[in-house]
């Protein structure tokens, strides 16, 4: 089985999104489709999935010309599209999700549950997955949900599966699980199109790659012939920095200290302290509790026991507003669910946190906010049309900068950034790193929570690694390596010998 896309052109209004792109994807290979946000990846895949129709160009499957007018046409030709937002119903069991919209029926017209369960288990066996098909999908973690989506594609006999950033919301362990599944699919001669921003994953799992930039195919070839630096360069069109960024800085007084902080099972007995001007990383795998820990410090969650000291003073934070007033800011992970307010414009999204501060008897002072926003949008290089445009009109990177501007506007003393570069293109990512370090220079204590070790290593002065709700260890300076972080994040310990072996100190 192979799919050819020939000379595809597509424009929306005056915006040429795809300018003559040709690709061939074969069965039994993992094909990486790369590019910055807005490069045309999604449009290309939406054309292949039958969501959009090309202005010019053809698609052929096994050499036969096909026309996909709607998604069903594409599915019938053996192409499955797994979107970034999974289409699963949490309140239905796995087997019903597998047959959603194509439920088999018995002669009397009722659902043929036996067949659904039988077929599901057959697929699980074939794919070597150990899961109870009667489990509710809502009880599964993200990686298994991704796997269920893949199995659903298999049940329709798809031979090409498009996976749109399947690993974004997964931890390293879960990613491994999905990768294993992808290898199994390859062995069953299924072709996979893998869309991702994570280049090391591309190196690990993909056979061939294609890079789109501004609607053109700028590079195509075998993954083994290139490095991640090459790919990044193809994507942005210039050399991308990978060197560590952390700067030498005189550290100030201790600003935040936490003692014995515990919340139910999320995190236990957490002790740490942060000084002014420090950039401290927190990393770990899923279930490490770092997000919950800082949400508690930010007043969004409760605390069962323990103490928080701000500037040496014992404080109790009962609400997020209190935390903001005390100079704590928290940029949450999963921007779309936790940070973006779709019914408000760019300006409002960037100023919501400071409304109470700059208002008199409840009336918002828009002038101050406009001033602040003008200043911040220049400082953060936010690319946008009008201030009053909808927030969703911006690319992921610029949305994140708007969210960041909201927190900088609160004049925080401590800025907590939870996965700050999630779903952000390479260019904006570098911008955000620069902003983080500039802020640290301005004597703000910065906490970066990230599941990407490379991010932690590049930006942070030191990092605390968490494992199942406890701090497993601390790494400083050049102790911060992928290896050490992974060792601690999986619950291991580092002996003195190992330090020496790793660094020859």
């Amino acid at each position, binding site marked *: 089985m192979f799919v050819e896309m020939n000379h595809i052109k597509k424009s929306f209004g005056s915006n040429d999104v795809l300018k003559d792109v040709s690709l061939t994807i074969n069965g039994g290979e993992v094909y990486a489709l790369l590019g910055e946000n807005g490069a045309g990846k999604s449009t290309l895949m939406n054309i292949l999935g039958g969501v959009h129709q090309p202005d010019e160009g053809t698609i052929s499957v096994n050499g036969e010309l096909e026309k996909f007018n709607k998604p069903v046409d594409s599915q019938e030709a053996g192409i499955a599209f797994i979107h970034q937002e999974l289409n699963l119903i949490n309140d239905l069991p796995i087997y019903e999700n597998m047959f959603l919209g194509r439920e088999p029926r018995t002669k009397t017209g009722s659902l043929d549950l036996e067949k659904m369960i039988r077929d599901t288990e057959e697929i699980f066996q074939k794919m070597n997955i150990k899961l109870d098909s009667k489990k509710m999908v809502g009880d599964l973690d993200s990686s298994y949900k991704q796997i269920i989506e893949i199995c659903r594609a298999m049940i329709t006999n798809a031979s090409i599966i498009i996976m749109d950033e399947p690993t974004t919301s997964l931890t390293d362990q879960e990613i491994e699980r999905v990768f294993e599944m992808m290898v199994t699919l390859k062995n069953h001669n299924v072709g996979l199109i893998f869309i991702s921003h994570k280049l090391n994953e591309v190196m690990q799992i993909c056979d061939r790659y294609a890079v789109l930039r501004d609607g053109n195919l700028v590079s195509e070839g075998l993954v083994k012939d290139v490095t991640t630096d090459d790919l990044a360069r193809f994507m942005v069109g210039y050399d991308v920095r990978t060197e560590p960024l952390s700067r030498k800085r005189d550290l100030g007084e201790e600003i935040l200290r936490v003692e014995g902080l515990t919340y139910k099972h999320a995190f236990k007995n957490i002790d740490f302290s942060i000084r002014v001007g420090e950039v401290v990383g927190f990393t770990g795998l899923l279930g490490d509790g770092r997000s919950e820990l800082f*949400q508690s410090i*930010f007043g*969004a969650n409760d605390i069962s026991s323990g103490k928080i000291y701000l500037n040496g003073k014992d404080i109790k934070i009962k*609400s*997020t*507003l209190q*935390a*903001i007033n005390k100079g704590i800011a*928290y940029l*949450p992970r999963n921007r779309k*669910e*936790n*940070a*973006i*307010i*779709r*019914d*408000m414009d760019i300006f*409002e999204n960037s100023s*919501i*946190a400071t*409304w*109470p501060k700059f*208002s008199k008897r*409840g*009336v*918002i002072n*828009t002038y101050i906010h406009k001033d602040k926003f003008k200043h911040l949008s220049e400082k953060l290089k936010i690319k946008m049309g009008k201030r009053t445009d909808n927030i969703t009109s911006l690319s992921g990177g610029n949305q994140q900068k708007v969210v960041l501007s*909201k927190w900088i506007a609160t004049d925080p003393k401590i800025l907590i950034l939870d996965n700050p570069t999630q779903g952000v293109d390479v260019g904006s990512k570098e911008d955000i790193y620069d902003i983080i370090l500039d802020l640290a220079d301005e004597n703000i204590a910065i906490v970066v929570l990230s599941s990407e070790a490379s991010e932690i290593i590049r930006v942070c002065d030191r990092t605390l690694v968490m494992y199942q709700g406890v701090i497993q260890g601390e790494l400083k300076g050049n102790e911060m390596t992928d290896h050490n972080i992974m060792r601690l994040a999986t619950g291991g310990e580092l002996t003195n010998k190992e330090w020496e072996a790793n660094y020859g100190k």
Partner: protein
Amino acid sequence: MGNEMVVNSRTSYLEWFKYKWSNDPLFSIFIGLVIMIIIQTLVLGFDYNSFGSWFQSWSNNWINILRNNAGIGIVALGMTFVIMTGGIDLAVGATLVATGAFAMALLDVGQRGILGIIGVTGYPAIILTIIFVLIFGYLLGSLIGVSVTKGMVPPFIATLGAMMVFRSVTQHLMQGYNPRVPVEFLQIASFKIGNLMIMPIIYWLIIAAILYYVSKRTTFGRHIIAVGSNERAANLSGVNVNKVKLRVYALMGLLVSIAAIIQVSRIGSMDYAGAGRGMEMDAIAAAVVGGTSMMGGRGFILGTVYGMLIIAVLNNLLNLFGVPPLLGDAFKGLIVIAAVLLQRKDKSS
């Protein structure tokens, strides 16, 4: 040259219209209202020769429409806020009856009037009554708000329960009791300005103007949108979500009590079984016609005023056409659905 300019301005008017139509959500609602008013005017018959008397009857008809819808118009404004937070309030009709009954029990000039018993009569009694009734409405609304926020009862359920409780308790307590309201109290609604009985309309306009300002320029008003659009994100941006919701339901109760005072002062009595029945649905309908999204996050005070007027003019038209009264709701229902369809179409284009 001159010709060209005319052509240009024409196309630019058309462009402007197109732009407004697809970008300003209130524009299509406003156009709908204008069209309905034109139809209504044509049906009433336009008369050049005796413009004065025509205008007299036209404006009289309008004052009637507005006065009859002032109470529900005020309630619909509060409902807009409630729906914008992603909630709903089914208890407004029952709250109206409860607060209305409370007002009458306070004011009663007979044997059992509460204020009369403690010796307060005349204008002080009326002022006290207004204050107490407003507080009572605010408290009933807060009660619903607390059960929605602290009790985490879904708004539909909480207000469904409140609806049954408020009306049933009121009916029970007021059984066999027919309070009489002092004539001075009736002045609240029937005081004439230049021979026109427009007080309820003025209340409506003032409240609409205040709430418009609140929704546009205050933290409370903008927080309502944030909470309805994305509750989690709002909370993580320092918005006290529960406080916003609580205040929205309390405000709803307050507005209903104002509507109750207007209603009692208009007729001097209240039918505890029938008054306010279906009011919640009419208020929701006005908000929805005015562009408020039942999903929360999107809503317009001005839109709700338009929506209320559209429904009111429709009722008036049905009257003028002699449509059987029982069919009235069918047309109302169709208008609601049509309005939502119209707005849906805008969004996708």
